[in-house]
């Protein structure tokens, strides 16, 4: 019984950690993309805009 509770707690912590790291990774990638545009002092290309839009659509379908 105690093992089952402990397993659930550990599972919950791992789920939260993975979710958190996934979110941080996405935000980091967004930051890096913006940083690149700032460094190059330019607007995103059509392909870059389309790629981000497709990521958003893929997350809805997932």
């Amino acid at each position, binding site marked *: 019984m105690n093992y089952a509770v402990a397993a659930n707690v550990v599972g919950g912590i791992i789920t939260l950690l993975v979710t958190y790291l996934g979110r941080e990774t996405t*935000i*980091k990638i*967004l930051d890096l993309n913006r*940083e690149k545009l*700032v460094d190059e002092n330019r607007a995103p290309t059509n392909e870059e*805009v389309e790629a981000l*839009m497709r990521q*958003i659509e893929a997350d809805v379908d997932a």
Partner: protein
Amino acid sequence: MRKTILAVALALPLAACGSSNDRVEGWASLKDSLCSEASASYNQQDCDKVKLYDLLGEVRELQEIKDSLFANPNIPAEVVEKVNRAEAQAVIALRTYTDAVLSGAPVTDATVQASLAALVSFQQILIDLASQEGLQ
């Protein structure tokens, strides 16, 4: 081993905080420069693209927040459905906005407003959910 994993998990957000303000200011400055008619680099389509790109980034972050909230298995099915519906409406509106910008045609206020309204609605539903779950 466990201590190392914990240290890395704690260090990541701290490292990310580093030059956050510089990045935010740099991005805001680029938007201003591309969208200011007085600026030498002003171009309407570039301005539309940078504004849209900014908005798309916001939605991507909201999607990540949604995924974090959905990690809680106790969220009622009707709430999940409501959040998913709001997300889908925001994405449909943004697809219309994106197609308009990428076509190079002038973007109407109605298109922009529809995207903003759908985005705000999606955001509000997530805020309500986070408040209920005590996860804010």
